[in-house]
């Protein structure tokens, strides 16, 4: 089913000799097709594929910019994509809450933090564009009715506290209000509608899509394909491919089916691969991020993830074999995920490390009650009981806790260089709450290359592919090696808004 024929639309491909021959010999099973002679079943003004943060923000912004006929298509039966089940963490610089809390921050500082995590290969222009518009995107969520915890959090890899979190500690605290806002604005939303390929005009421009209706994800029911013309163009907001084990293993063979995944089932990557077939530039596909805050005791993102994200700054992560710390608990995600994967027993089998927090500090997060109630976390009255439960050597563990508490007092961690600001006065004392940690595949840094107008760039010309825009996790290269926590929501929303603005100007 190979479809390497780039629609025969680029004249210079013909000059490539043998390569062109192979391409032209590709079977007529091409998924994307020329629009010549196509019978259009429907026509819409703005066509958006995917209903997560990026798609919803794009729909709202397109409407605000004057679009009258905006349509969102969602493959799954329910709306919100992966955005509806994530942690609901939103980073932005120079926010009202930072002013209230006296946190000094700037676009430059946020970009610098992200560039450091990106290890030299992040896209500074895109990071800057997102940081500059992050407050606008935050405002869009507030206008739609999103509510946030009344405190900021400092997540791993961030040099200051700049992260808002929805009061429900979930992205649904944003997708639900945005979806309602879309409906209020008259945006048309279609579920069970699977994107099947682009329809392309004479000049290589995207003029429409093939859409499978009545599609039941994971079930054997074919549905029916129709051709939809998109007058202004198509915005691809289809997310990452963390749930597609074949595709992620093609990039990183260590990410087998045995490694868990936090994503919604629909994060399977077809939209992205179809853009590659059209000529989009693949960037950083092998950089697939695992979340170091996940638990092996529940599926997906679950309850523990947000619990540990909140608690890492005032907790110790302990290797159960040694009873010692093994990482800076608020290092960036890759550093911590790699360190956790090294926690193994004498035979080399996985030995998920534990995160120990004082109950007095952990209980401030709403998930603490729930992790205990649903048996994915435990409460202990003494260090002895804790050590016995997890089979941790007691003496070294006691010594480590005592040593760490000295670091809390001195506001300095010579062991791993952790920033102790948020740990101030938060000593590790009984009673404790404990969760187990093990990374889960969480985010695909790679995807199609876009510019700061959210236009998808063509691999041969370097120019934007006319009529095609992309936003959110389906885009690649922005974050480089490792995305910082809470930087995806602003990116999805800002680039979704940007795509809509570019399209309405085009």
């Amino acid at each position, binding site marked *: 089913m190979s479809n390497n024929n780039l629609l025969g639309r680029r004249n210079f491909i013909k000059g490539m000799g043998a390569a062109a021959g192979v391409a032209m010999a590709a079977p007529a099973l091409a998924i994307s097709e020329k629009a010549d002679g196509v019978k259009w079943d429907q026509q819409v003004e703005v066509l958006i594929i995917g209903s997560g943060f990026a798609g919803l923000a794009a729909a709202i912004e397109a409407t605000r910019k004057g679009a009258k006929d905006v349509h969102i298509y969602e493959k799954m*039966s*329910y*709306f*919100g994509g992966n955005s*509806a*089940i994530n942690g609901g963490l939103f980073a932005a610089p120079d926010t009202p809450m930072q002013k209230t809390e006296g946190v000094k921050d700037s676009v430059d500082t946020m970009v610098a933090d992200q560039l450091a995590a990106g290890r030299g290969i992040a896209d500074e222009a895109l990071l800057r564009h997102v940081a500059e518009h992050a407050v606008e995107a935050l405002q869009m969520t507030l206008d739609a009715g999103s509510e946030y915890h009344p405190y900021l959090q400092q997540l791993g890899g961030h040099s200051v506290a700049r992260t808002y979190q929805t009061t*429900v500690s*979930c992205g*649904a605290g944003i997708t*639900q209000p945005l979806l309602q806002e879309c409906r209020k604005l008259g945006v048309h939303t279609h*579920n*069970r509608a699977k994107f099947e390929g682009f329809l392309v005009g004479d000049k290589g421009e995207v003029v429409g899509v093939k859409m499978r209706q*009545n599609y*039941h994800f994971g*079930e054997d*029911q074919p549905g029916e394909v129709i051709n939809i013309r998109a007058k202004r163009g198509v915005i691809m907001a289809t997310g990452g491919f963390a749930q597609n084990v074949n595709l992620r293993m093609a990039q990183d063979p260590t990410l087998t089916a045995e490694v868990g995944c936090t994503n919604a*089932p629909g994060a399977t990557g077809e939209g992205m691969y179809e853009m590659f077939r059209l000529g989009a530039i693949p960037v950083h596909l092998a950089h697939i991020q695992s979340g170091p805050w996940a638990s092996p005791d*529940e*599926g*997906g*993102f*679950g*309850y523990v993830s947000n619990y540990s994200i909140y608690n890492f700054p005032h907790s110790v992560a302990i290797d159960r074999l040694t009873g010692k710390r093994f990482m800076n608990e608020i290092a960036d995600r890759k550093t911590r995920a790699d360190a956790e994967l090294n926690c193994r027993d004498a035979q080399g089998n996985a030995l998920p490390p534990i995160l120990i927090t004082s109950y007095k500090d952990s209980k401030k997060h709403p998930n603490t*009650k729930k992790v205990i109630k*649903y*048996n*994915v976390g435990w409460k202990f009255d003494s260090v002895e009981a804790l050590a016995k439960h997890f089979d941790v050597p007691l003496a070294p563990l006691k010594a480590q806790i005592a040593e760490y508490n000295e670091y809390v007092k001195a506001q300095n961690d010579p062991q791993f260089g952790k920033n102790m600001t948020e740990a101030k006065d938060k000593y590790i004392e009984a009673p404790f709450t404990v969760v187990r940690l093990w990374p889960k595949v969480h985010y695909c840094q790679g995807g199609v290359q876009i510019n700061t107008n959210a236009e998808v760039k063509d691999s041969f010309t370097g120019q934007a592919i006319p009529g095609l825009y992309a936003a959110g996790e389906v885009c690649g290269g922005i974050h480089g090696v490792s995305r910082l926590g809470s930087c995806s929501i602003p990116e999805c929303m800002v680039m979704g808004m940007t795509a809509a603005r570019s399209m309405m100007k085009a």
Partner: protein
Amino acid sequence: MINLKAVLALTFGCFLSLSAQAVEIRDHHKEVIGKDCKTCHDNGIKQFPSDQACLQCHDVDDLAEQTARSEEDKWQNPHDNLHYGKELPCQECHSEHDTKKPLCSNCHTFKYDKHKE
């Protein structure tokens, strides 16, 4: 290449599972709809029912009320949940002729004692 025999076997299997005799229907549904498959299969007999099919008889607000949980756990109400509100199509968790796990179990260890898995 796809084995032709396998395709035939598969097709035959499908017809069997679609024949009325082999299809299990829940007793409380039998009483109401009898053997009129089209009552639910509004998209055609060989198609899944539409997302609206169940709502001909079931009211989502009533269902949400029936499965309401305490304030602390209010968002674990499968018919009015945190992630999708009241919009989750019935077929995500329910199957008339088969058993299904609730969608929540992808990520959570919640217990729904009355749900037929």
